[in-house]
């Protein structure tokens, strides 16, 4: 009798060890973007395949960032998987806060991840967050309005051409504005756009000694150009317009051109939401002939906080959500135009995806961004539209507020740059540079 019990117990142990894992409940923090909401809707597929269940914490971007940063820096352990960006990943990974993604399965195929994405999410060659989708920025323009203005958009336009076209397209009487650009203050809002644009004008955030460069002529040129252009050809209230506001303006047919995230392409060409779905063309973000385009590089990626007790299950989730199968799953449910873009090479080699109008330009934009080497003059930081140092988000948000006020006409470009220089210098000093 006793022997039988012991045998039973032993066999139970063995079977527990062989059946892969227990069913876990994962808490996943994510941002409320369309692709993530879609992922939320497909959770059942993950649960079916692995037995794990998922609790979603979906928050607006800024709230999410606060929330996950607080939690990870205090080792709170409230989340098993966190949605983070290209900015956080290297900083967190250097602090040892993230689980390395170097032991993923064969089918997951790490080599398939676009090199630009892998580069931005790795530290010393090790991947620390798996890209869910990636983006660059590009010009989206109204083909009909461009024709009406008697112009033809080149594939790689200069800022001079874009500004000229924008002024010609503008028809304020009929609420048509030549160009819609971000103006809302925030390091991920207007500063993402302006930092990327400043790269094309030959400006940079810091020189090699980490001295702020807002007192240099290149920044003055960038900001003057931007403010003048927006005053002549931008929509009213541009200083409070972010991605959302501009998206809605473009969808309502009020913008001639819009330079923003490549993921927006699927929204503006979707006839359900967009009144101009069949009149949109795409081009590379503009340059000034100095060798750099004004496009950025960003990925929303899934990271696992070091020290979580559910690491195995969390990895299973990350593999599921960033796999080739997941892309197929979305394509089957929602069509190829709605799959998460910009993360995998195989997606752009897929015949089905080649029919999507914005696929080629998205890939070209992503490939033309170089986070290791973002500016005309050398810089000590990594990142195209940001500098991957912990202080950047705070500084850039405040600089963004000064620039936003300059756009709103509450101060001059010179004043804004002067304040930006002062507060950046101050904050860098506080951080011990």
């Amino acid at each position, binding site marked *: 009798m006793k022997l039988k019990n012991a045998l039973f117990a032993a066999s139970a142990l063995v079977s527990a060890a062989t059946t892969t894992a227990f069913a876990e409940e994962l808490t996943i*923090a994510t941002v409320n973007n369309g692709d993530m909401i879609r992922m939320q809707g497909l959770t059942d597929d993950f649960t079916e395949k692995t037995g794990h269940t998922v609790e979603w*914490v979906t*928050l*607006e971007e800024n709230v999410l960032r606060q929330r996950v940063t607080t*939690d990870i820096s*205090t080792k709170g352990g409230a989340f098993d998987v966190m949605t983070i960006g290209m900015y956080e990943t290297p900083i967190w990974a250097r602090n040892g806060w993230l689980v390395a993604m170097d032991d993923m399965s064969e089918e997951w195929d790490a080599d398939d991840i676009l090199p630009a994405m892998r580069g931005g999410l790795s530290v010393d060659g090790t991947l620390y967050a798996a890209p869910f989708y990636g983006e660059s920025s590009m010009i989206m323009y109204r083909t009909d309005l461009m024709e009406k203005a008697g112009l033809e958009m080149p594939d790689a336009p200069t800022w001079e051409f874009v500004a000229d076209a924008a002024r010609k397209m503008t028809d304020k009487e009929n609420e048509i504005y030549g160009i819609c650009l971000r103006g809302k203050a925030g390091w991920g809002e207007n500063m993402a756009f302006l930092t990327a644009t400043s790269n094309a004008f030959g400006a940079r955030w810091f020189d090699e000694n980490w001295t702020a460069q807002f007192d240099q002529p290149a920044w003055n040129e960038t900001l003057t150009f931007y403010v003048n252009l927006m005053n002549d050809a931008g929509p009213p209230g541009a200083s409070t317009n972010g991605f959302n506001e501009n*998206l809605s303006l473009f969808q309502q047919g009020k913008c001639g051109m819009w330079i923003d995230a490549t993921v927006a392409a699927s*929204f503006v060409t979707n006839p359900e939401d967009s009144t101009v779905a069949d009149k949109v063309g795409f081009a590379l973000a503009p340059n000034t002939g100095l060798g750099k385009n004004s496009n950025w590089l960003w990925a929303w990626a899934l990271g696992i906080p070091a020290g979580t007790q559910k690491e195995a299950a969390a990895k299973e989730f990350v593999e599921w959500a960033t796999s080739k199968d997941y892309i197929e799953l979305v394509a089957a449910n929602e069509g190829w135009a709605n799959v998460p873009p910009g993360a995998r090479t195989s997606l752009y080699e897929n015949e089905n995806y080649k029919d999507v109008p914005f696929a080629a330009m998205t890939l070209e934009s992503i490939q033309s961004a170089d986070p290791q080497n973002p500016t005309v003059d050398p810089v000590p930081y990594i990142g195209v539209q940001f500098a991957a140092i912990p202080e950047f988000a705070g500084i850039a948000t405040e600089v963004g507020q000064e620039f936003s006020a300059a756009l709103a006409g509450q101060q001059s470009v010179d004043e804004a740059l002067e304040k930006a220089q002062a507060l950046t210098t101050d904050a860098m000093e506080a951080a011990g540079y």
Partner: protein
Amino acid sequence: MARAVTNNRKALNTAIAWSIGILIFFPILWTILTSFKTEAQAISDPPVFLFFDWTLENYTVVQERSNYMRFLWNSVVIAGGSTILGLIIAVPAAWSMAFVPSKRTKDILLWMLSTKMLPAVGVLYPIYLIFIKLGILDTRTGLVIVMMLINLPIIVWMLYTYFREIPVEILEASRMDGATLKEEIIHILTPMAVPGIASTMLLNFILAWNEAFWTLNLTAAKAAPLTAFIASYSSPEGLFYAKLSAASTMAIAPILILGWFSQKQLVRGLTFGAVK
């Protein structure tokens, strides 16, 4: 003749008051109306007021995306729990200040109120660390405690002002009859203070329900109340006025309905000792 004048004046009062009332209520009304529109109608130019195709689609979408009932239940538990816990601690304190005042009573009261002036964000990290140590992060218990502490000064103060309005003679009479302190509080004081206690509870329920800093920053999935629910609908990719309106309506409807039924209580009871 006099009657006619009064009626005229009453009509004038009615007209003015209703206009102002509707003006003040309009943002809420507009939100509720927008929640029944399609996204296209929500931003149509010119705006449509009543004559559109009413649809429940936004509510369906919101419900599919978020488990509304769980957020709602968390809000109810946190707001209700903290109010009741606060009351249990505040009633004795308010009693002692009202009936056995000392020289320091007023100082203690004002000091209690001043604890509310600590800027919440400045102490987020300390509190977060304490929560981790105690293992009460993302639990309703943790939030009930924090909400109770935040609102305790207001509860004490409100109860104190109500208790002070109760004539001491009644209490003295009951003491003559040999009532113990406990009996005095339960059988004499509390019944007399019921209207006051009711409006105290209401006000604190509302304040706890609407608190959006701690409830958002100390929760993840399990204890997240409606303030976290709304944070998943603000600034999404794209402009979704109708869905935002539906989510907003769902977040404020329960408390609005509660307020609706209890407005008499609030109108009579919310005095803070303003009336002598």
